[in-house]
C-alpha cells in the first residue's frame, strides 16, 4: 500500500457569497505526479494556496505527511515547497542572494554546496550573481524552480510551472521535473492549463470546474471515458458542460 502524503477532505473556501472551492476531497500517494486541471476561476490556485497554508479554508481539513496543515503547518512546511507565477522573488537581490536567504529560512545544511548543485542541475550558474529582476522569463522560471527545490521537497506544488515559457524551455522544465520525481520519489501536484504537459507528466488528473472536482483519472482513462482523442477535448467537454461530459462523469 502506497503511503498517502496528502489528504484533503471537504475542503471549502468562500469569499463572501462566492464559493471558490466547494468541498473537494482527494488523496495523493508518495511518488505520484498529479494535476489539477480546469479553466480560469475553477479553483486550482485557491486549492494550492490552502495546501500551502497561505489561505485559510472556510471548512474541511488538509493532512500532509500525517500532520494537520491547519494546526501543525510549521512541521509540514520544511518538507514542502512551491513555485507560482503569482508570487515573485525580490528583484534587486541576485539569484545567489535569493537562494541564500531561502536556504537559510529552510536551514539547509551545506547551503553553499546545495546552491552550487542546483545551479549545475538547473543551468543557472551563469547568472547566479545577476539581479533576479534582470533575468528573462525562462531564466526566472528556472530560478523559481531552484528555490522550490532548495529543501528537496517531498511534496512539490507547482502552479502553471511552464506558463509564458517558450516550447524549448517548457520541455526542459518538464524533463527536469520527471527526473526529480524519479530520483527523489517526491509527490508533485501541479495546476495547469497546458494539456500536453499534464498528459506527459501526470498519472492522475483531477478536473475542476466551479470549485469542484468533477472527474478524476489517468489522462488515458479520461480520454477513453469521454470518447475523445486528446485531453484537451476532454477539458473542453467538461468546461462547456455538454451531454458527453455529464454522461462520462456519471459513469
Amino acid at each position, binding site marked *: *500500500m*502506497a*503511503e498517502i502524503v496528502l489528504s484533503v477532505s471537504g475542503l471549502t*473556501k468562500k*469569499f463572501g457569497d462566492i464559493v471558490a472551492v466547494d468541498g473537494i476531497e482527494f488523496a495523493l*500517494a*508518495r*511518488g*505520484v505526479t498529479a494535476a489539477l486541471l480546469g479553466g480560469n476561476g475553477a479553483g486550482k*490556485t*485557491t486549492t494550492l*494556496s490552502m495546501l*500551502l*497554508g*497561505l*489561505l*485559510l479554508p472556510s471548512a474541511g481539513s488538509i493532512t500532509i505527511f500525517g500532520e494537520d496543515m491547519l494546526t501543525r503547518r*510549521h*512541521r*509540514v*512546511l*520544511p*518538507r*514542502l*515547497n*512551491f513555485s*507560482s507565477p*503569482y*508570487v*515573485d*522573488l*525580490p*528583484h*534587486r*537581490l*541576485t539569484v545567489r*542572494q535569493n537562494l*541564500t*536567504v*531561502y536556504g*537559510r*529560512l*529552510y*536551514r*539547509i*545544511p551545506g547551503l553553499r554546496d*546545495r546552491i552550487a548543485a542546483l545551479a549545475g542541475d538547473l543551468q543557472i550558474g551563469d547568472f547566479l550573481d545577476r*539581479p533576479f529582476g534582470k533575468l528573462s522569463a525562462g531564466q526566472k522560471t528556472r530560478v523559481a524552480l531552484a*528555490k522550490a527545490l532548495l*529543501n*528537496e521537497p*517531498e511534496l512539490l506544488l507547482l502552479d502553471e510551472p511552464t506558463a509564458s515559457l517558450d516550447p524549448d524551455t517548457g520541455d526542459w522544465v518538464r524533463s527536469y521535473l520527471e527526473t526529480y520525481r524519479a*530520483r*527523489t*520519489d517526491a509527490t508533485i501536484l501541479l495546476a495547469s492549463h497546458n494539456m500536453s504537459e499534464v498528459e506527459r507528466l501526470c498519472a492522475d488528473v483531477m478536473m475542476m470546474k466551479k470549485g469542484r472536482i468533477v472527474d478524476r483519472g489517468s489522462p488515458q482513462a479520461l480520454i477513453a471515458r469521454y470518447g475523445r482523442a486528446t485531453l484537451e477535448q476532454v477539458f473542453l467537454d467538461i468546461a462547456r458542460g455538454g451531454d458527453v461530459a455529464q454522461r462520462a462523469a456519471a459513469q
Partner: protein
Amino acid sequence: MTAAAPAPARLRVPTGDGFSPARVWAMMLRYLFLLRSSWPRTLELIYWPAIQMILWGFMSQFLMTNSSWVAKAGGVLLAAVMLWDVMFRGQLGVSVSFLEEMWSRNLGHLFATPLRPYEWVISLIFMSFVRVAIGVVPSALLAIPLYHYSIFTLGLPLLAFFALLMFMGWAMGLAICGLILRNGLGAESIAWFAVFILAPVSAIYYPVSILPRWLQYVAWFLPSSHVFEGMRAVMFEHTFPLGHFIAAAGLDIVWLAAGGIVFLLYMRQARRRGALMQMGE
C-alpha cells in the same frame, strides 16, 4: 506507484518547530543584501536626518540670541529634532522593510517557508535599529563640528530616551504594517505620514503645558511626550525625571502590545482573504 522502492537518501532539513534565530538572521540578511545593493537607499537614510539637523541647528543659533528659553539650554532644539528622528526612523525601519516584501510580491514565498510571523517581526525590529543607526548617528556626529553641540552630553539618559522612542516607533511600525496588510499597497502612504499625526501632541519642541487642556490629556498617553519632557528636564534642570521615564516605559509596553496584536490580527486576516498570494504592485 513506487511505494515498494527503498526510500532515496534525502537532504536532512530541520523541522520548523519553535523559534529559530537562523530564520531571523535569514530575513535580516535579505534586507542587508538589499541595502548593500543600492547606495541611493543608504544615502537617503542619512540625507533627511542630516538636512533636518542642519536646518534646526541654524534655527537654534538664531533663537539662542533671541529667546531666553532656548538660551538657557543651547541644543535643546537640536536634541529634540534628533530624538524625534529616532522615533520616525524607528517606525520607518519596520514599515519600509515590510513594504519591500509587498513591492516585490514576495509574501507568498516567505510564508510558505517555516518562517513564523513573530520571527519576521524580530528581523524587522533589528533592521529598524540598523536603519536608525545609519540615519541618526552621522547627524549626531555632524552637529559637533557644525554647532558645537553633542547630543552625547545627555549621558546615560540619552540611552533611555533612545530606547523609549525606538519602542514607540516599532509599535507604530507594526500597527502600520497591519493596516497595509489590511488595505493593500494603496495604503502605503500611511507609513510615511502616520507618525506626524502625533508630532504636535508629542511636545517635541515645546512643553506639554503649551497644549490646550484637553490635548494635554491625549499627550500624556504618548510615550514620546514623556520622553521630550524628560529630555528638557535633563537639559534645563539637570535631573533625571524618573516619573516620566517610568510612565514612558509603561506606555511603551501597552503600545508595543497593541501594535503587535494589530499586526498579527491583520496577518491572520490576510491568510483568510488570500492576500498573501496577491499582495503586490
